């Protein structure tokens, strides 16, 4: 469980509670900090590992976590490692972190900030173009050798002039909006609160946004208020020529309703990177040419992994040298 050769100052001890990181991520951390890696340790379950770390002569002052690591950062966790003063989350979403409890204990929290925003925005735009212009369907047509046999491929829909309603205008939603404007789309949005100084029309609820949209893009965080924020009513308001693009979380959309609407032709198409019950997407969609599905890849580029590594190191260095975090998350402040 002890970290490998420790040239870095012994006081920079970091708990690594995240699975599946690449070698360069580990190397970058180990160059600067003493890393206690739970997923590489022989000390499971978690309480034993945390207990041993807390009891060590130099207990950890920072922890690297992520929601999908399934380790909630709550009072019990913080009690187990009282030396922790910094929690570094590798994603934007911090639903699994009790921010109030951290604040009470003087534990600062950082998230991924806008490290992933451009890549997620690019993917959303890529999915939108694919669905409207039938890129993946046309690709299948060519690869199956149908072009010489069947001649023309079905026409797609023009992107310019299309009204796009973005649900959630945070870092990601704003980047999507900027790109879609350059493609001639008319952008509107819904968000918890209207944003000052954005040129896009605001709707107070998603139903009204859907009524006035040709495409709905889900770009919001997942929480109690946004679970199934795109459901039967919203799909009906969007209408039979409407398209849904989801790069948020699968549970932002009532997936069963979406599948039904697609099967019955009550909406025109969908571009989906996220699903309820991943991995895997609903089999009923696999034969549909008006649907594009990707396996939760919107953040995963080589560049974003490298940016994340640099971002984590920079936040931790700031913390250890007594500086403010670069991307702090405060209780009750918008995550986006």
């Amino acid at each position, binding site marked *: 469980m002890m970290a490998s050769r420790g040239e870095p100052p012994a006081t920079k001890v970091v708990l690594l509670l995240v699975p599946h990181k690449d070698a360069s991520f580990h190397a970058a951390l180990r160059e600067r900090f003493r890393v206690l890696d739970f997923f590489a340790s022989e000390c499971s379950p978690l309480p034993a590992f945390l207990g041993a770390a807390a009891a060590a002569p130099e207990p950890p002052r920072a922890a690297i976590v992520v929601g999908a690591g399934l380790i909630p950062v709550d009072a019990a966790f913080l009690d187990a490692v009282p030396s922790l003063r910094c929690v570094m989350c590798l994603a934007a979403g911090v639903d699994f972190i009790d921010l109030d409890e951290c604040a009470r204990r003087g534990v600062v929290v950082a998230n991924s900030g806008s490290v992933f925003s*451009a*890549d997620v*925005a*690019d*993917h959303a*735009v*890529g*999915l939108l*173009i*694919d669905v409207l*212009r*039938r*890129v*993946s369907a*046309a*690709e*299948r*047509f*060519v*690869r199956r*050798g149908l*072009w*010489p046999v069947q*001649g*023309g*491929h079905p*026409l*797609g*829909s*023009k*992107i*310019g002039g299309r009204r796009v309603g973005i649900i959630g205008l945070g870092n990601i939603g704003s980047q999507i909006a*900027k*790109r879609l*404007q*350059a*493609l*001639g789309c008319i952008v509107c949005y819904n968000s918890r609160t209207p944003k000052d100084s954005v040129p896009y029309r605001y709707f107070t609820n998603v139903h009204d946004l859907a009524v006035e949209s040709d495409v709905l893009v889900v770009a919001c965080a997942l929480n109690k208020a946004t679970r199934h924020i795109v459901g039967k009513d919203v799909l009906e308001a969007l209408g039979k020529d409407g398209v849904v693009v989801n790069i948020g979380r699968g549970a932002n959309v009532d997936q069963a309703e979406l599948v039904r609407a697609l099967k019955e032709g009550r909406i025109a198409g969908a571009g989906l990177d996220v699903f309820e019950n*991943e*991995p*895997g*997407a609903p089999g009923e969609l*696999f034969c549909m040419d008006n649907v*594009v*599905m*990707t*396996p*939760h*890849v919107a953040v*995963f*580029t*080589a*560049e*974003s*992994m490298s940016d994340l590594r640099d971002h984590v190191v920079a936040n931790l260095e700031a913390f250890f040298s007594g500086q403010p975090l670069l991307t702090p998350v405060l209780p009750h402040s918008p995550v986006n």
Partner: protein
Amino acid sequence: MESLGVLLLHPVNAYLEQELGRRCRLYRFWESPREEFLRAHAGAVRAVVGNANYGADAALIDALPALEIVASFSVGIDRVDLAKCRERGIRVTNTPDVLTDDVADLAVGLAIAVLRRIPQADRYVRAGLWKSRGDYTLTTRFSGKRVGIIGLGRIGQAVARRVEAFDCPVSYHQRTEQASVYPNYTYYPTVVELAANSDVLVVACPLNASTRHIVSREVMEALGPKGVLINVGRGPHVDEPEMVAALADGRLGGAGLDVFEDEPNVPEALLGMDNVVLVPHVGSGTYETRKAMADLVLGNLEAHVLSKPLLTPVV
């Protein structure tokens, strides 16, 4: 224009065909053998309507003594023998502007599709591999990549404006630099230099004698093992066999292709590659744009018949 004999070379668009049939004297070139048709109707044909793949070449023009106008259902008119038309005093029109946005959108869509492997990832999901094999591979970011555009005409400029929203630095090559018009874009005097300084190379120039195979082996090698070629121009802009070889052995990183040298035939080797996105000449393929193109063809024919200025003349 009921008395205008119009020869439609191929069933390019149902609406266009229907309107030509309704408003003109329509002849459908594919309905009978060529020689038989020409024997029977050559003298009645005053207008020819073709598209990107079916044009009025010298032989056809020679066979139509009454031909007055060629109205192409496309912006590229490399399949029309312009010299012959000028010689005979035949007018030529195309369909610029109405398809500019669609082609530029597709170019951007193809670039993202290639770098982010969207069609490939979609196949992965449909094959059940997400469940059985787990997470997909890392892909390559599009935002911020250096985009080089061959030909900064209507389509090239539309591509440039779009990729600027993705923070992509734009550079270009064409016959003349226009530094005062494009102060934010970098000009390169040769295509090889453009390719050497680009991550994504977009072909957006017209096809003519000097741009045939403008994307040569040397250009593709300059673009390199991480470079991506996007062709929304014409197949012959690219040396296709060299491209296939360069993609196969990694000298060229990837390609997004809407056009091919011998459409509708796509080189067999490409069909098995994972680093390419292939679509069947759909650059202008939306309901809205095809109708606008058809209306432009009809408008040009009508203007001709009424001796009014043509809407979008090339010759």
